[in-house]
């Protein structure tokens, strides 16, 4: 009998697992896939290592910083600053028709950019920033409210509103057009106030440190162990039944599988399905390996969030892919001591999940190739032409994401309605991860920690 079974060996599940294992709870993480990672994973293809999910770690803070999410999470997981080898970005931008706002990990630079390009808006922008700084995004009692409404009270130029929303939505919004204000604050702090960094080795290093820590404290991990059913008796969870038919008993179950995905596993469904609607925002990502470094071509930016439509539209497109906007990321463009082995460009754009899910297999590959070319053409308006330097290409779609993570619709940011307290209709079944609502790489780990602390470790609940 385990104290806790955790469903999913992604960052949130591992973080919850480390907390429980550290405090000597018998804990087992069950993972359906053949490896750890979940939505932030990695793979090897034609002798090349690739990251999935992670473009950059957000919430950057300088080593030794005593406050903020990154410092909090390292302390909670008993990790050291050097464990994640975080190297700051070179500089990123939001590129819209005729106007580009640049930003770095120094917020004052971004503020100055806003003051220069939008002089009439700077006072409102500063009021908004102070409101964001005062908002406690980790308070689980926050109510949902429209971020666009709150932002538009201070910023009257819709172009600036769109340019602020663009990177925040691309890197974390499960909802179309608007975000819940707390989610907006999490992303604003993570991207603009704190900033981007990346380990030289990419997401592999973070995953390796997490699993090492979990194992060191005595946690158990079972790969290739998909959960068929979450078992309960009289409204209390008793364990899980694996796809193999094996039953594992536990006093608590924590699921990082997603809220709708978790509810579908419960032997007793929730009285209401309505709070558990899966998300529908997903992406296609194209990955190019180059025979030069991006900087050799004059491309020095870490990440470019681009849009050339009059208004920025964030929604599942009716077309297979929305070519009007996207994200260009170069993992080479961080301030490393030594360069990466190879030049890489990753371009990501909004995709229509239904289209990619329902394509017959024989058309799927051809369509993926055709749209990869269209995505590049679209992105080339915002970066130097690198096509003659491409030595390898890969792409993944909502279908790939669902195949490897089991998240419905390939929805990388999960359900529109977050369940912040992590509680469910069953006693001792808790949610963590994307659908608990702390966003980003650091957020996902904080989600696991928070749910473990609140429901499993706090002495009154033990």
């Amino acid at each position, binding site marked *: 009998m385990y104290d806790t079974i955790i469903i999913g060996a992604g960052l949130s599940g591992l973080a919850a697992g480390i907390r429980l294992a550290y405090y000597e709870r018998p804990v087992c993480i069950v993972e359906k896939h053949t490896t750890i990672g979940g939505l932030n994973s990695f793979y090897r293809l034609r002798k090349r290592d690739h990251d999935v999910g992670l473009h950059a770690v957000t919430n950057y803070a300088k080593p030794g*910083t*005593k*406050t903020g999410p990154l*410092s909090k999470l390292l*302390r*909670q997981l008993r990790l050291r600053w050097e464990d994640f080898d975080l190297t700051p970005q070179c500089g990123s931008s939001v590129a819209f028709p005729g106007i580009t706002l640049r930003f770095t990990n120094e917020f004052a630079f971004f503020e100055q950019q806003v003051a220069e390009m939008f002089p009439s808006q700077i006072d409102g922008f500063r009021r908004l920033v102070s409101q964001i700084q005062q908002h406690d995004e980790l308070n689980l009692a926050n109510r949902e409210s429209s971020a666009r409404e709150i932002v538009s009270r201070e910023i009257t130029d819709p172009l600036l509103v769109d340019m602020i929303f663009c990177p925040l939505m691309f890197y974390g919004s499960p909802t179309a057009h608007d975000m819940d204000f707390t989610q907006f604050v999490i992303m604003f702090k993570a991207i603009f106030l704190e900033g981007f960094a990346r380990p030289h080795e990419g997401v592999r290093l973070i995953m390796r440190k997490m699993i090492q820590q979990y194992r060191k404290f005595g946690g158990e991990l079972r790969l290739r162990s998909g959960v068929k059913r979450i078992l309960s008796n009289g409204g209390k969870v008793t364990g899980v039944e694996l796809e193999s038919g094996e039953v594992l008993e536990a006093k608590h179950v924590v699921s990082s599988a997603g809220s709708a995905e978790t509810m579908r596993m419960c032997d007793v469904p929730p009285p209401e399905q309505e709070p558990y609607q899966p998300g529908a925002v997903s992406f296609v990502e194209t990955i190019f390996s180059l025979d030069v470094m991006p900087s050799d071509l004059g491309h020095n930016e870490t990440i470019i969030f681009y849009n050339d439509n009059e208004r920025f539209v964030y929604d599942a497109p009716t077309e297979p892919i929305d070519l009007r906007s996207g994200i260009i990321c170069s993992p080479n463009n961080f301030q490393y001591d030594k360069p990466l082995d190879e030049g890489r460009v990753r371009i990501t754009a909004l995709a229509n999940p239904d289209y990619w899910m329902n394509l017959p297999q024989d058309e799927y590959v051809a369509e993926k190739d055709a749209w990869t070319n269209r995505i590049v053409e679209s992105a080339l308006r915002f970066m130097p032409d690198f096509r003659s330097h491409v030595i390898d290409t890969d792409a993944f779609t909502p279908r790939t994401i669902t195949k490897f993570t089991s998240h419905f619709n390939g929805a990388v940011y999960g359900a529109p309605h977050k369940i912040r307290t992590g509680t469910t209709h069953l006693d001792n079944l808790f949610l963590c991860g994307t659908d608990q609502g702390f966003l980003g790489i650091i957020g996902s780990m904080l989600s696991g920690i928070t749910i473990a602390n609140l429901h499993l470790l706090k*002495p009154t609940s033990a």
Partner: protein
Amino acid sequence: MSADQIRQVVMKILCRIAPDNDLTALKDEVPFREQMELDSMDFLDIVMELRKLYRVQIPEEDYGFLNTMASTVQYLIPKLQTATA
């Protein structure tokens, strides 16, 4: 365990949960929160570490006793009198 030994135990725990704080100048009569960046997650960790190390149970209503080093040591003396450092 003596008051001195208990103080050492609490120091060890503080080092573990807040390694980036300089604890050499910690004042025993001043609240931890005023000298270190500790949040509610960290206070939970002090409680949990004590439980892990010495099986001491500290109910939530007693968290107030963990305000300063001096009050923490005072509070722990009866609970740790039979424990060995």
